[in-house]
Protein backbone atom coordinates (compact mmCIF):
# COMPACT_ATOMS: atom_id res chain seq x y z
CA UNK A 1 0.00 0.00 0.00
CA UNK A 2 0.98 3.59 -0.59
CA UNK A 3 1.48 4.66 3.03
CA UNK A 4 3.45 1.56 3.96
CA UNK A 5 5.86 2.23 1.09
CA UNK A 6 6.20 5.81 2.25
CA UNK A 7 6.85 4.60 5.76
CA UNK A 8 9.48 2.16 4.56
CA UNK A 9 11.21 4.90 2.63
CA UNK A 10 11.20 7.27 5.60
CA UNK A 11 12.75 4.60 7.81
CA UNK A 12 15.15 3.25 5.21
CA UNK A 13 16.98 6.46 4.30
CA UNK A 14 18.34 7.33 7.78
CA UNK A 15 18.73 3.65 8.58
CA UNK A 16 20.97 3.00 5.59
CA UNK A 17 22.92 6.20 6.15
CA UNK A 18 23.61 5.39 9.79
CA UNK A 19 24.38 1.79 8.92
CA UNK A 20 26.97 2.84 6.36
CA UNK A 21 28.51 5.77 8.19
CA UNK A 22 28.07 4.76 11.81
CA UNK A 23 27.69 1.01 12.25
CA UNK A 24 29.98 -0.38 9.55
CA UNK A 25 32.86 1.93 10.55
CA UNK A 26 32.78 0.40 14.03
CA UNK A 27 32.97 -3.07 12.57
CA UNK A 28 36.01 -1.94 10.58
CA UNK A 29 37.59 -0.60 13.78
CA UNK A 30 36.96 -3.97 15.40
CA UNK A 31 38.47 -5.80 12.43
CA UNK A 32 41.50 -3.56 12.31
CA UNK A 33 42.21 -4.03 15.99
CA UNK A 34 43.21 -7.60 15.13
CA UNK A 35 45.59 -6.55 12.36
CA UNK A 36 49.32 -5.93 12.42
CA UNK A 37 50.97 -2.63 11.65
CA UNK A 38 53.08 -2.64 8.47
CA UNK A 39 54.93 0.01 6.50
CA UNK A 40 52.54 0.21 3.60
CA UNK A 41 49.47 2.02 2.35
CA UNK A 42 47.17 1.40 4.17
CA UNK A 43 49.47 0.69 7.11
CA UNK A 44 47.96 -2.58 8.32
CA UNK A 45 47.75 -6.23 7.31
CA UNK A 46 44.51 -7.68 5.93
CA UNK A 47 42.45 -9.91 8.20
CA UNK A 48 41.95 -12.55 5.51
CA UNK A 49 44.68 -13.43 3.05
CA UNK A 50 43.11 -14.80 -0.11
CA UNK A 51 46.27 -15.92 -1.87
CA UNK A 52 49.22 -17.80 -0.45
CA UNK A 53 52.89 -16.99 -1.14
CA UNK A 54 52.78 -18.92 -4.40
CA UNK A 55 49.79 -16.93 -5.64
CA UNK A 56 47.27 -19.77 -5.28
CA UNK A 57 43.80 -19.31 -3.86
CA UNK A 58 44.09 -20.35 -0.23
CA UNK A 59 42.14 -18.14 2.16
CA UNK A 60 43.79 -17.82 5.51
CA UNK A 61 42.49 -15.93 8.55
CA UNK A 62 45.14 -13.88 10.29
CA UNK A 63 44.02 -12.81 13.73
CA UNK A 64 46.55 -10.94 15.79
CA UNK A 65 45.91 -10.46 19.49
CA UNK A 66 49.17 -8.59 20.06
CA UNK A 67 47.46 -5.18 20.22
CA UNK A 68 45.20 -6.25 23.06
CA UNK A 69 48.02 -8.03 24.86
CA UNK A 70 50.08 -4.85 24.63
CA UNK A 71 47.19 -2.79 26.05
CA UNK A 72 46.89 -5.16 28.98
CA UNK A 73 50.58 -5.43 29.69
CA UNK A 74 51.93 -1.97 29.05
CA UNK A 75 51.60 0.33 32.01
CA UNK A 76 51.12 3.40 29.78
CA UNK A 77 47.77 2.26 28.41
CA UNK A 78 46.38 0.97 31.68
CA UNK A 79 47.34 4.22 33.37
CA UNK A 80 45.78 6.23 30.54
CA UNK A 81 42.48 4.44 31.04
CA UNK A 82 42.54 4.79 34.82
CA UNK A 83 43.51 8.47 34.72
CA UNK A 84 40.78 9.18 32.14
CA UNK A 85 38.13 7.48 34.25
CA UNK A 86 39.31 9.26 37.39
CA UNK A 87 39.42 12.71 35.78
CA UNK A 88 36.03 12.21 34.07
CA UNK A 89 34.46 10.98 37.33
CA UNK A 90 35.65 13.87 39.49
CA UNK A 91 34.98 16.42 36.75
CA UNK A 92 31.39 15.09 36.58
CA UNK A 93 31.02 15.48 40.35
CA UNK A 94 32.37 19.04 40.23
CA UNK A 95 30.10 19.88 37.28
CA UNK A 96 27.15 18.53 39.27
CA UNK A 97 28.12 20.61 42.31
CA UNK A 98 28.49 23.75 40.18
CA UNK A 99 25.51 23.03 37.91
CA UNK A 100 22.91 22.09 40.51
CA UNK A 101 22.67 25.48 42.26
CA UNK A 102 22.60 27.19 38.88
CA UNK A 103 19.85 24.93 37.52
CA UNK A 104 17.92 25.25 40.79
CA UNK A 105 18.10 29.04 40.73
CA UNK A 106 17.01 29.04 37.07
CA UNK A 107 14.00 26.85 37.85
CA UNK A 108 13.00 29.15 40.74
CA UNK A 109 13.48 32.35 38.74
CA UNK A 110 10.41 34.33 37.61
CA UNK A 111 8.79 32.63 34.63
CA UNK A 112 9.47 35.54 32.30
CA UNK A 113 13.24 35.19 32.87
CA UNK A 114 13.47 31.48 32.34
CA UNK A 115 13.57 31.43 28.54
CA UNK A 116 16.40 33.95 28.56
CA UNK A 117 18.33 32.07 31.26
CA UNK A 118 18.02 28.80 29.31
CA UNK A 119 19.22 30.59 26.21
CA UNK A 120 22.22 31.96 28.16
CA UNK A 121 23.16 28.42 29.17
CA UNK A 122 22.76 27.08 25.62
CA UNK A 123 24.71 29.86 23.95
CA UNK A 124 28.19 28.73 25.14
CA UNK A 125 27.36 25.20 23.96
CA UNK A 126 26.91 26.59 20.45
CA UNK A 127 30.23 28.41 20.61
CA UNK A 128 33.31 26.56 19.53
CA UNK A 129 34.64 24.06 22.01
CA UNK A 130 38.18 24.71 20.85
CA UNK A 131 37.84 28.46 21.31
CA UNK A 132 36.35 28.09 24.78
CA UNK A 133 39.22 25.84 25.85
CA UNK A 134 41.71 28.23 24.26
CA UNK A 135 40.21 31.12 26.23
CA UNK A 136 41.46 29.51 29.45
CA UNK A 137 45.10 29.49 28.40
CA UNK A 138 45.38 33.26 28.79
CA UNK A 139 43.69 33.03 32.19
CA UNK A 140 45.49 30.07 33.71
CA UNK A 141 49.08 30.31 32.51
CA UNK A 142 51.82 31.40 34.92
CA UNK A 143 51.90 34.99 33.69
CA UNK A 144 48.15 34.83 32.95
CA UNK A 145 45.25 36.95 34.14
CA UNK A 146 44.30 34.82 37.16
CA UNK A 147 47.80 34.93 38.61
CA UNK A 148 48.15 38.63 37.78
CA UNK A 149 44.86 39.37 39.56
CA UNK A 150 45.69 37.25 42.62
CA UNK A 151 49.13 38.80 42.93
CA UNK A 152 47.77 42.33 42.49
CA UNK A 153 45.37 41.73 45.36
CA UNK A 154 48.20 40.23 47.39
CA UNK A 155 46.68 36.79 48.02
CA UNK A 156 49.71 35.03 46.57
CA UNK A 157 53.29 36.20 46.17
CA UNK A 158 54.39 33.90 43.40
CA UNK A 159 52.33 32.52 40.49
CA UNK A 160 50.24 29.38 40.98
CA UNK A 161 51.14 26.68 38.50
CA UNK A 162 47.76 25.59 37.10
CA UNK A 163 48.36 25.44 33.37
CA UNK A 164 49.66 22.07 32.13
CA UNK A 165 48.43 20.25 35.24
CA UNK A 166 45.40 18.08 35.98
CA UNK A 167 43.76 21.11 37.63
CA UNK A 168 43.61 22.90 34.30
CA UNK A 169 42.01 19.80 32.75
CA UNK A 170 39.37 19.69 35.49
CA UNK A 171 38.57 23.38 34.97
CA UNK A 172 38.42 22.86 31.20
CA UNK A 173 36.06 19.88 31.38
CA UNK A 174 33.73 21.45 33.95
CA UNK A 175 33.63 24.67 31.97
CA UNK A 176 33.06 23.04 28.58
CA UNK A 177 30.47 20.49 29.68
CA UNK A 178 28.55 22.60 32.22
CA UNK A 179 25.62 23.31 29.82
CA UNK A 180 25.15 19.54 29.34
CA UNK A 181 24.79 19.20 33.11
CA UNK A 182 22.60 22.25 33.70
CA UNK A 183 19.96 21.68 30.99
CA UNK A 184 18.72 18.22 32.07
CA UNK A 185 18.85 19.33 35.72
CA UNK A 186 16.83 22.41 34.89
CA UNK A 187 14.29 20.35 32.93
CA UNK A 188 13.82 18.03 35.91
CA UNK A 189 13.67 20.83 38.50
CA UNK A 190 11.36 23.06 36.50
CA UNK A 191 8.70 20.34 36.26
CA UNK A 192 8.50 20.00 40.03
CA UNK A 193 5.35 21.14 41.72
CA UNK A 194 6.20 23.79 44.37
CA UNK A 195 3.26 22.64 46.46
CA UNK A 196 5.26 19.50 47.32
CA UNK A 197 7.76 21.69 49.17
CA UNK A 198 4.91 23.56 50.85
CA UNK A 199 3.46 20.23 51.97
CA UNK A 200 6.85 19.24 53.40
CA UNK A 201 7.07 22.58 55.21
CA UNK A 202 3.52 22.22 56.56
CA UNK A 203 4.45 18.83 57.92
CA UNK A 204 7.32 20.46 59.77
CA UNK A 205 10.33 19.73 57.58
CA UNK A 206 13.00 22.44 57.68
CA UNK A 207 13.96 23.77 54.21
CA UNK A 208 17.21 21.77 53.97
CA UNK A 209 15.39 18.58 54.85
CA UNK A 210 12.65 19.27 52.33
CA UNK A 211 15.38 19.90 49.76
CA UNK A 212 17.13 16.57 50.44
CA UNK A 213 14.01 14.45 50.77
CA UNK A 214 11.81 16.03 48.08
CA UNK A 215 13.71 18.16 45.57
CA UNK A 216 16.82 16.03 45.10
CA UNK A 217 15.10 12.62 44.73
CA UNK A 218 12.60 14.08 42.25
CA UNK A 219 15.41 15.56 40.17
CA UNK A 220 17.25 12.23 39.98
CA UNK A 221 16.50 11.66 36.26
CA UNK A 222 18.07 15.04 35.54
CA UNK A 223 21.10 14.20 37.69
CA UNK A 224 21.58 10.89 35.87
CA UNK A 225 21.14 12.39 32.38
CA UNK A 226 23.41 15.35 33.09
CA UNK A 227 26.12 13.20 34.67
CA UNK A 228 26.13 10.75 31.76
CA UNK A 229 26.25 13.59 29.24
CA UNK A 230 29.36 14.91 30.98
CA UNK A 231 31.05 11.65 31.97
CA UNK A 232 30.89 9.69 28.70
CA UNK A 233 32.48 12.23 26.35
CA UNK A 234 34.89 13.42 29.07
CA UNK A 235 36.47 9.95 29.33
CA UNK A 236 37.49 10.10 25.67
CA UNK A 237 38.26 13.80 25.65
CA UNK A 238 41.19 14.87 23.48
CA UNK A 239 41.17 18.66 23.04
CA UNK A 240 41.11 19.64 26.73
CA UNK A 241 43.96 17.43 28.02
CA UNK A 242 45.97 18.21 24.91
CA UNK A 243 45.69 21.99 25.19
CA UNK A 244 45.37 22.57 28.94
CA UNK A 245 46.99 19.45 30.41
CA UNK A 246 50.66 18.72 30.68
CA UNK A 247 52.67 15.88 29.23
CA UNK A 248 51.86 13.96 32.41
CA UNK A 249 48.11 14.20 31.86
CA UNK A 250 47.70 10.85 30.17
CA UNK A 251 44.15 10.66 28.95
CA UNK A 252 43.11 7.85 26.67
CA UNK A 253 41.79 10.13 23.90
CA UNK A 254 45.22 11.76 23.77
CA UNK A 255 46.96 8.38 23.74
CA UNK A 256 44.73 7.15 20.89
CA UNK A 257 45.44 10.33 18.94
CA UNK A 258 49.21 9.95 19.47
CA UNK A 259 49.18 6.28 18.38
CA UNK A 260 47.25 7.20 15.27
CA UNK A 261 48.82 10.47 14.14
CA UNK A 262 52.33 10.31 15.62
CA UNK A 263 53.18 6.60 15.63
CA UNK A 264 50.91 5.74 12.68
CA UNK A 265 49.96 2.52 14.46
CA UNK A 266 46.39 2.23 13.18
CA UNK A 267 45.74 -1.28 14.55
CA UNK A 268 46.80 -0.29 18.07
CA UNK A 269 44.70 2.90 17.89
CA UNK A 270 41.74 0.73 16.83
CA UNK A 271 42.31 -1.63 19.74
CA UNK A 272 42.32 1.36 22.12
CA UNK A 273 39.03 2.55 20.57
CA UNK A 274 37.47 -0.91 21.02
CA UNK A 275 38.53 -1.11 24.67
CA UNK A 276 37.31 2.45 25.28
CA UNK A 277 33.94 1.51 23.79
CA UNK A 278 33.74 -1.59 25.98
CA UNK A 279 34.50 0.55 29.03
CA UNK A 280 31.83 3.06 28.02
CA UNK A 281 29.17 0.64 26.79
CA UNK A 282 27.38 0.47 30.14
CA UNK A 283 26.97 4.25 30.55
CA UNK A 284 26.12 4.65 26.84
CA UNK A 285 23.37 2.01 26.98
CA UNK A 286 22.10 3.54 30.23
CA UNK A 287 21.91 6.92 28.52
CA UNK A 288 20.09 5.50 25.47
CA UNK A 289 17.57 3.68 27.64
CA UNK A 290 16.88 6.82 29.59
CA UNK A 291 16.46 8.93 26.46
CA UNK A 292 14.19 6.37 24.80
CA UNK A 293 12.06 6.08 27.95
CA UNK A 294 11.81 9.85 28.16
CA UNK A 295 10.77 10.06 24.49
CA UNK A 296 7.98 7.53 25.12
CA UNK A 297 6.90 9.44 28.22
CA UNK A 298 6.77 12.71 26.29
CA UNK A 299 4.68 11.00 23.62
CA UNK A 300 1.91 10.15 26.04
Amino acid at each position, binding site marked *: MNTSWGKRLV*IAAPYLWLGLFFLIP*FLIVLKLSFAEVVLARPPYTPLIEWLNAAGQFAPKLRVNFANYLLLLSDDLYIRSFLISLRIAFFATLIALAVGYPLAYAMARAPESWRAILVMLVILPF*WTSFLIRVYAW*IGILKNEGLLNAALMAVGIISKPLVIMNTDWAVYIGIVYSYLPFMVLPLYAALEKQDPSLLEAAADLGAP*PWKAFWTVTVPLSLPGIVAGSLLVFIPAV*GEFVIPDILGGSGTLMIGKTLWAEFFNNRDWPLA*SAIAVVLLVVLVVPIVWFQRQQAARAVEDGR
Partner: protein
Amino acid sequence: MNASRLSTVNIVALTIGFAFLYVPILILIVFSFNESRLVTVWAGFSTKWYAALLENRQIMDAAWITLRVAIVSATVATIIGTLAGLTLARFVRFRGRTLFTGMIYAPLVMPEVITGLALLLLFVALDWDRGYWTVTLAHATFSMAYVAVIVQSRLVGFDRSLEEAAMDLGATPLRTFFAVTLTLIAPALIAGWLLAFTLSLDDLVIASFASGPGATTLPMRIYSQVRLGVTPEINAISTILIAIVACGAVAATLVQKRSLVLRRRAEAAARADV
Protein backbone atom coordinates in the same frame (compact mmCIF):
# COMPACT_ATOMS: atom_id res chain seq x y z
CA MET B 1 11.44 36.00 55.02
CA ASN B 2 12.21 32.50 53.99
CA ALA B 3 11.50 33.25 50.35
CA SER B 4 13.72 36.32 50.29
CA ARG B 5 16.66 34.42 51.81
CA LEU B 6 16.23 31.75 49.20
CA SER B 7 16.20 34.26 46.40
CA THR B 8 19.45 35.86 47.63
CA VAL B 9 21.07 32.43 47.47
CA ASN B 10 19.56 31.96 44.03
CA ILE B 11 20.83 35.30 42.78
CA VAL B 12 24.32 34.45 44.01
CA ALA B 13 24.11 31.06 42.25
CA LEU B 14 22.97 32.68 39.01
CA THR B 15 25.67 35.36 39.18
CA ILE B 16 28.52 32.96 39.89
CA GLY B 17 27.26 30.38 37.37
CA PHE B 18 26.89 32.80 34.50
CA ALA B 19 30.11 34.64 35.37
CA PHE B 20 31.93 31.31 35.13
CA LEU B 21 30.33 30.62 31.75
CA TYR B 22 30.86 34.05 30.24
CA VAL B 23 33.91 35.79 31.75
CA PRO B 24 36.48 33.66 29.83
CA ILE B 25 34.69 34.38 26.55
CA LEU B 26 34.47 38.09 27.33
CA ILE B 27 38.18 38.25 28.19
CA LEU B 28 38.97 36.54 24.90
CA ILE B 29 36.88 39.08 22.98
CA VAL B 30 38.33 42.07 24.85
CA PHE B 31 41.92 41.03 24.18
CA SER B 32 41.23 40.60 20.46
CA PHE B 33 41.09 44.42 20.39
CA ASN B 34 44.38 44.81 22.27
CA GLU B 35 47.12 46.92 20.71
CA SER B 36 49.89 44.79 22.21
CA ARG B 37 50.90 41.33 21.08
CA LEU B 38 50.85 40.26 24.72
CA VAL B 39 47.50 38.75 25.47
CA THR B 40 47.61 39.55 29.18
CA VAL B 41 48.58 43.24 29.21
CA TRP B 42 46.15 45.87 27.94
CA ALA B 43 47.90 48.45 25.73
CA GLY B 44 45.03 50.31 24.11
CA PHE B 45 42.28 49.69 21.58
CA SER B 46 43.13 48.47 18.10
CA THR B 47 41.52 46.53 15.28
CA LYS B 48 44.83 45.68 13.65
CA TRP B 49 44.55 41.94 14.36
CA TYR B 50 41.35 41.82 12.34
CA ALA B 51 43.11 43.55 9.47
CA ALA B 52 45.96 41.04 9.79
CA LEU B 53 43.43 38.20 9.48
CA LEU B 54 42.23 39.39 6.10
CA GLU B 55 45.85 39.28 4.89
CA ASN B 56 46.33 35.75 6.19
CA ARG B 57 45.73 33.48 3.18
CA GLN B 58 45.88 30.24 5.18
CA ILE B 59 43.17 31.40 7.58
CA MET B 60 40.96 32.79 4.82
CA ASP B 61 41.25 29.59 2.74
CA ALA B 62 40.46 27.47 5.78
CA ALA B 63 37.48 29.70 6.60
CA TRP B 64 36.09 29.28 3.08
CA ILE B 65 36.41 25.48 3.19
CA THR B 66 34.84 25.38 6.65
CA LEU B 67 31.88 27.45 5.48
CA ARG B 68 31.24 25.19 2.48
CA VAL B 69 31.52 22.05 4.58
CA ALA B 70 29.16 23.49 7.20
CA ILE B 71 26.46 24.56 4.71
CA VAL B 72 26.40 21.29 2.76
CA SER B 73 26.71 18.99 5.78
CA ALA B 74 24.01 20.89 7.71
CA THR B 75 21.63 20.59 4.75
CA VAL B 76 22.23 16.86 4.35
CA ALA B 77 21.96 16.36 8.13
CA THR B 78 18.65 18.25 8.21
CA ILE B 79 17.09 16.15 5.43
CA ILE B 80 18.15 12.77 6.82
CA GLY B 81 17.79 13.87 10.43
CA THR B 82 14.19 14.92 9.78
CA LEU B 83 13.38 11.48 8.38
CA ALA B 84 15.08 9.94 11.40
CA GLY B 85 13.11 12.19 13.76
CA LEU B 86 9.87 11.23 11.99
CA THR B 87 10.77 7.58 12.39
CA LEU B 88 11.50 8.02 16.09
CA ALA B 89 8.28 9.92 16.79
CA ARG B 90 5.82 8.12 14.51
CA PHE B 91 6.86 4.54 13.93
CA VAL B 92 6.90 3.03 17.37
CA ARG B 93 7.07 -0.54 16.19
CA PHE B 94 9.19 -1.90 13.36
CA ARG B 95 11.87 -4.51 13.08
CA GLY B 96 15.23 -3.10 14.12
CA ARG B 97 13.92 -0.11 16.06
CA THR B 98 16.22 -0.79 19.00
CA LEU B 99 19.26 -0.69 16.74
CA PHE B 100 17.87 2.43 15.10
CA THR B 101 17.38 4.39 18.33
CA GLY B 102 20.81 3.20 19.43
CA MET B 103 22.40 4.58 16.28
CA ILE B 104 20.60 7.92 16.81
CA TYR B 105 21.50 8.46 20.46
CA ALA B 106 25.01 6.99 20.45
CA PRO B 107 26.62 9.75 18.33
CA LEU B 108 25.38 12.33 20.87
CA VAL B 109 27.72 11.02 23.55
CA MET B 110 30.30 9.01 21.60
CA PRO B 111 33.84 10.30 22.24
CA GLU B 112 34.87 12.12 19.10
CA VAL B 113 38.18 10.30 18.76
CA ILE B 114 36.27 7.03 18.26
CA THR B 115 33.81 8.44 15.72
CA GLY B 116 36.65 10.13 13.85
CA LEU B 117 38.84 7.04 13.73
CA ALA B 118 35.93 4.82 12.66
CA LEU B 119 34.94 7.12 9.80
CA LEU B 120 38.52 7.46 8.62
CA LEU B 121 38.91 3.69 8.48
CA LEU B 122 35.70 3.45 6.45
CA PHE B 123 36.99 6.00 3.94
CA VAL B 124 40.30 4.12 3.68
CA ALA B 125 38.50 0.79 3.25
CA LEU B 126 36.33 2.27 0.49
CA ASP B 127 39.46 3.83 -1.00
CA TRP B 128 37.91 7.29 -1.08
CA ASP B 129 40.29 10.23 -1.31
CA ARG B 130 40.13 12.16 1.90
CA GLY B 131 39.28 15.82 1.61
CA TYR B 132 36.33 18.16 1.35
CA TRP B 133 33.71 15.46 0.71
CA THR B 134 34.79 13.07 3.41
CA VAL B 135 34.73 15.85 6.05
CA THR B 136 31.27 16.87 4.82
CA LEU B 137 29.95 13.29 5.07
CA ALA B 138 31.46 12.86 8.52
CA HIS B 139 29.88 16.07 9.78
CA ALA B 140 26.50 15.26 8.27
CA THR B 141 26.57 11.90 10.04
CA PHE B 142 27.29 13.15 13.55
CA SER B 143 25.08 16.24 13.37
CA MET B 144 22.01 14.42 11.96
CA ALA B 145 21.55 12.82 15.38
CA TYR B 146 21.04 16.29 16.90
CA VAL B 147 18.57 17.23 14.15
CA ALA B 148 16.69 13.98 14.71
CA VAL B 149 16.29 14.66 18.42
CA ILE B 150 15.10 18.25 17.83
CA VAL B 151 12.57 17.17 15.16
CA GLN B 152 11.38 14.28 17.30
CA SER B 153 10.67 16.49 20.31
CA ARG B 154 8.77 18.88 18.07
CA LEU B 155 6.66 16.08 16.59
CA VAL B 156 5.81 14.76 20.02
CA GLY B 157 3.80 17.87 20.89
CA PHE B 158 2.10 17.85 17.52
CA ASP B 159 -1.62 17.83 16.85
CA ARG B 160 -2.27 14.89 14.51
CA SER B 161 -5.84 16.00 13.83
CA LEU B 162 -4.57 18.56 11.29
CA GLU B 163 -3.02 15.78 9.24
CA GLU B 164 -6.15 13.69 9.55
CA ALA B 165 -8.21 16.64 8.40
CA ALA B 166 -6.01 17.07 5.31
CA MET B 167 -6.32 13.37 4.49
CA ASP B 168 -10.11 13.47 5.02
CA LEU B 169 -10.23 16.32 2.52
CA GLY B 170 -8.55 14.05 -0.01
CA ALA B 171 -4.87 14.97 0.20
CA THR B 172 -2.44 12.15 -0.51
CA PRO B 173 -0.05 11.19 2.30
CA LEU B 174 2.83 12.82 0.43
CA ARG B 175 0.91 16.05 -0.11
CA THR B 176 -0.20 16.04 3.54
CA PHE B 177 3.39 15.64 4.61
CA PHE B 178 4.61 18.61 2.61
CA ALA B 179 1.58 20.88 3.15
CA VAL B 180 0.85 20.18 6.81
CA THR B 181 3.56 18.25 8.64
CA LEU B 182 6.55 20.01 7.19
CA THR B 183 5.00 23.46 7.63
CA LEU B 184 4.29 22.78 11.28
CA ILE B 185 7.74 21.40 12.10
CA ALA B 186 9.58 24.01 10.00
CA PRO B 187 10.89 25.86 13.10
CA ALA B 188 12.49 22.63 14.30
CA LEU B 189 14.09 22.14 10.89
CA ILE B 190 15.54 25.65 10.98
CA ALA B 191 16.82 25.20 14.53
CA GLY B 192 18.25 21.80 13.58
CA TRP B 193 19.97 23.20 10.50
CA LEU B 194 21.53 26.02 12.52
CA LEU B 195 22.74 23.62 15.20
CA ALA B 196 24.21 21.26 12.58
CA PHE B 197 25.86 24.25 10.92
CA THR B 198 27.56 25.41 14.11
CA LEU B 199 28.57 21.88 15.11
CA SER B 200 30.32 21.54 11.77
CA LEU B 201 31.88 24.98 12.09
CA ASP B 202 33.34 24.02 15.49
CA ASP B 203 34.52 20.48 14.99
CA LEU B 204 38.22 19.75 15.29
CA VAL B 205 38.63 16.09 16.15
CA ILE B 206 36.41 14.41 13.57
CA ALA B 207 37.62 16.79 10.85
CA SER B 208 41.25 15.99 11.69
CA PHE B 209 40.60 12.29 11.05
CA ALA B 210 38.30 12.66 8.05
CA SER B 211 40.20 15.41 6.26
CA GLY B 212 43.06 15.09 3.83
CA PRO B 213 45.56 17.35 2.17
CA GLY B 214 44.00 20.51 0.75
CA ALA B 215 40.99 20.44 3.06
CA THR B 216 42.26 22.01 6.27
CA THR B 217 39.30 23.45 8.14
CA LEU B 218 39.40 26.54 10.32
CA PRO B 219 39.40 24.67 13.66
CA MET B 220 42.31 22.54 12.38
CA ARG B 221 44.20 25.72 11.43
CA ILE B 222 43.37 27.36 14.79
CA TYR B 223 44.44 24.23 16.64
CA SER B 224 47.85 24.11 14.97
CA GLN B 225 48.37 27.77 15.94
CA VAL B 226 47.06 27.32 19.49
CA ARG B 227 49.75 24.70 20.09
CA LEU B 228 52.32 27.43 19.44
CA GLY B 229 50.80 29.77 22.00
CA VAL B 230 48.22 32.47 22.53
CA THR B 231 48.16 35.16 19.84
CA PRO B 232 45.80 38.09 19.23
CA GLU B 233 45.01 36.80 15.72
CA ILE B 234 43.43 33.68 17.21
CA ASN B 235 41.47 35.91 19.59
CA ALA B 236 40.26 37.92 16.58
CA ILE B 237 39.17 34.93 14.50
CA SER B 238 37.55 33.43 17.63
CA THR B 239 35.61 36.64 18.21
CA ILE B 240 34.29 36.57 14.65
CA LEU B 241 33.24 32.93 15.02
CA ILE B 242 31.56 33.65 18.35
CA ALA B 243 29.66 36.56 16.79
CA ILE B 244 28.43 34.37 13.90
CA VAL B 245 27.38 31.57 16.21
CA ALA B 246 25.70 33.92 18.68
CA CYS B 247 23.61 35.40 15.85
CA GLY B 248 22.68 31.89 14.69
CA ALA B 249 21.72 30.79 18.18
CA VAL B 250 19.62 33.87 18.82
CA ALA B 251 17.92 33.43 15.44
CA ALA B 252 17.14 29.78 16.18
CA THR B 253 15.67 30.65 19.56
CA LEU B 254 13.57 33.46 18.14
CA VAL B 255 12.24 31.22 15.34
CA GLN B 256 11.27 28.52 17.83
CA LYS B 257 9.70 31.06 20.18
CA ARG B 258 7.79 32.94 17.48
CA SER B 259 6.27 29.74 16.17
CA LEU B 260 5.25 28.82 19.71
CA VAL B 261 3.51 32.17 20.15
CA LEU B 262 1.75 31.78 16.80
CA ARG B 263 0.67 28.26 17.68
CA ARG B 264 -0.72 29.34 21.04
CA ARG B 265 -2.58 32.19 19.39
CA ALA B 266 -4.04 29.82 16.78
CA GLU B 267 -5.07 27.38 19.48
CA ALA B 268 -6.71 30.17 21.48
CA ALA B 269 -8.55 31.33 18.35
CA ALA B 270 -9.72 27.78 17.65
CA ARG B 271 -11.05 27.49 21.18
CA ALA B 272 -12.84 30.83 20.84
CA ASP B 273 -14.57 29.57 17.67
CA VAL B 274 -15.90 26.57 19.49
